[in-house]
């Protein structure tokens, strides 16, 4: 056993390293990149890739080495396509998280609003909530703050559709919390400041 270890084909080890790199990569890796990262020659990387291609191929493994335009990447075997489709296709999301809902409400009633303002009112950083809502296209950028130059956000037509509103002014009344957006903003900021950390 010990003997075998000592005479291990060095390309085997390189092949394992390349496999490891491919499994953590979020984009295809070129031979050039692989050679740089492994500190090996491109020739030896190609040999290692040949070895991997023999192991990770359709019919033998569920993980398949694929040569695409940008280089090499791992993909799911075709025979597993149905199961993969079931994994990826996710059911309709029932509701938004508390963070997303609060951020959305602040933008809907006060908007356009900047992230620092949302953070001040919610008492926590708004970065990930805002990014998530932008990705879902429920809010969008709406110019910049006059003072600080921070990007401001407003709700989108998709937001109105999802919440069944006929337009931006169709939001439920909130008169008891302040007659207009400025009053509401002042009240929210005041409460947030007194709530502390």
């Amino acid at each position: 056993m010990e003997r075998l270890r000592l005479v291990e084909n060095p390309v085997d080890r390189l092949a394992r390293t390349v496999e490891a790199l491919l499994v953590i990569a979020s984009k295809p890796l070129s031979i050039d990149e692989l050679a740089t990262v492994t500190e090996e020659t491109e020739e030896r990387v190609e040999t290692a890739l040949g070895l991997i291609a023999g192991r990770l191929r359709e019919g033998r493994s569920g993980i398949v080495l694929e040569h695409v335009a940008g280089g090499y990447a791992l993909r799911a075997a075709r025979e597993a396509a149905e199961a993969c489709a079931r994994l990826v296709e996710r059911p309709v999301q029932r509701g938004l998280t508390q963070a997303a809902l609060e951020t959305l409400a602040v933008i809907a009633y006060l908007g356009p609003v900047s992230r620092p303002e949302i953070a001040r009112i919610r008492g926590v950083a708004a970065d990930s909530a805002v990014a998530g809502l932008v990705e879902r296209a429920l809010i969008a950028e709406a110019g910049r703050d006059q003072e600080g130059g921070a990007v401001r956000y407003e709700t989108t037509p998709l937001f109105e559709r999802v919440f069944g509103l006929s337009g931006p002014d169709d939001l439920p009344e909130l008169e008891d919390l302040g007659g207009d957006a400025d009053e509401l903003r002042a009240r929210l900021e005041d409460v947030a400041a007194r709530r502390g950390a």
Partner: protein
Amino acid sequence: MALAVRELPLDLDAFEGPFDLLLTLVLREELELRDVDIAEIVVAFLERLADRDELDLDACGEFLVLASALLELKARGLFPDEDLDLEGLDPEEAAEELAERLAAYRRFRAAAGWLEERLKAESDRYFRLGPAPLSPTAERPLAQQEPAQLVSVLRALAAEPPEPSLGHLVLSYPPLSRFLERFRTLLRSRGRFAFDNEVDRLPRVDQVVAFLALLELRKRNEAQIAQAGPFEPITVWNASAS
């Protein structure tokens, strides 16, 4: 590495050892607080702080809490009859509270140490973050939502916060950010203000935190500070306006 305030080595007339041991001895009444010069502890901390390039705000905050707790205990010991406006907390309770907190804190510090070790041991485990390069991604549609949800979260955000509990008053202190925000607002709206006017009604611990906030603004070049002499009023003004 952050400054470990609780491990701050002390070499005082009455005591030699780490800061947390001093606290323990005091709380066990094995060391008389009146023999301890708290100014010496402050000097030791400041010397340690001066060895560093940056102001370690976390360490300052932690030190403030512990030092002010000691001061509080000492003040009560020296003036047992003085009403310190902290009804409901006698010195023993304060000491017990502090001891309990130190014990709880030590457990979590040990847990943090465990996590740190774990991180070191696992530092050679690499995995992919985010989606795989050749995998199909599907949008996840959002179901129809009720507008009333927006109203209810806004109402919750606008609800009056509860009165702060007095239970932890002796050990609680306000976040630095509160004073940073307040002073920035003042500088924006007025351009200049007298520090003493802003803090003279506040509890002592708040005043110290407010002063730290002031130093931080000065360090970030957001404010200028002037004082005619020791114990004179401090004037603060907008750095960009001058």
